[in-house]
């Protein structure tokens, strides 16, 4: 049980990734697929930050009054996630712009009815 509690965050992150993956693979509505992509992103971000977390330490900011020897958590995954969040919003907004464009041409968001090409 303690083992389970230790990896709550991994379960949350993995679960989010798997739900997102399932939505991308199984859903037929384009907006739903893009929401799935957003879950894939968020899940990976939680996973990265959870990997960098060290129990009993503080955030990696040495504010005034803190000695420089204070134990802090790993700053690198946080920096990576900052980058990844911005990448994610770029991809998602481009995806939504494209789906608006597809809707203009086809009048539907259902991939089963969008068959100019093979899906």
């Amino acid at each position, binding site marked *: 049980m303690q083992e389970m509690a*230790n990896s709550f965050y991994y379960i949350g992150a993995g679960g989010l990734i798997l739900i997102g993956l399932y939505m991308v693979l199984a859903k037929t509505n384009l907006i739903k697929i893009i929401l799935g992509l957003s879950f894939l992103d968020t899940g990976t971000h939680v996973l990265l930050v959870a990997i960098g977390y060290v129990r009993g330490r503080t955030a*990696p900011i040495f504010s005034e009054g803190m000695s420089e020897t204070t134990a*802090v958590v790993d700053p690198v995954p946080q920096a990576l996630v900052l980058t990844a*969040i911005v990448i994610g919003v770029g991809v998602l907004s481009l995806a939504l712009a494209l789906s608006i464009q597809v809707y203009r041409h086809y009048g539907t968001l259902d991939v089963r009815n969008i068959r100019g090409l093979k899906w």
Partner: protein
Amino acid sequence: MRKAIAFLLVATVGAAFYVVLGHIPFGEDKIDVANHYIQNGVRETGAVNIVTSVVVTYRGFDTLGEVTILFIAAVGIGAVLFTEKKARDEEPKQKASLIVQTGTNLLFPFILLTGVYVFIHGHLTPGGGFQGGAVIASGYLLLYLTWPDWRINRRRFNAVESLSGLAFVVLGVLGITYGMGFLANFLPLGTPNTLFSAGIIPIIYIAIGLKVGSELAGIVGNLMERE
């Protein structure tokens, strides 16, 4: 059928997670390279926020790539949703109520100010160019929601985008001319924990903040305007 295959693939990925993550203990000290940043970060970069020093100095190249990605997304959305003629003839859309209008008028300057505060203090407190830029962009979103017919000045926004991006690259190249390598921190570091410290970090964060703000506002604008 589609759902069955999806389930199968998801289960495979889940199993892979289980195996690998079982070997990466949660909450334990696994820090390797990052110890260098934690121990020497403040001294080497002058920024007390170690995440900032990693984002801007140690992994500054990623950050340059990242603002580039946002730039591509903004330009790409502009290209994808481009319309030849200016569709100005549509009937005027309904404005928001007077309360919202007054509220927006009051709030908008403060939102901008908050955004600027967040990215100027990026090396001291949590937050930085991206968060500040996002705050600025949400201010513009508010303007759009209140006055649907309002348009941002696209030429000015493009100019801000380009100039702040160029500033980032030029700061990087200046590092080379000072003989310290691309994106190196060539300015004096100053006293940690004061506003004018950390060399080029605040300057880069200001450039990032302006760039991210104008790009996100441009993306929102593109999606609002083009019917």
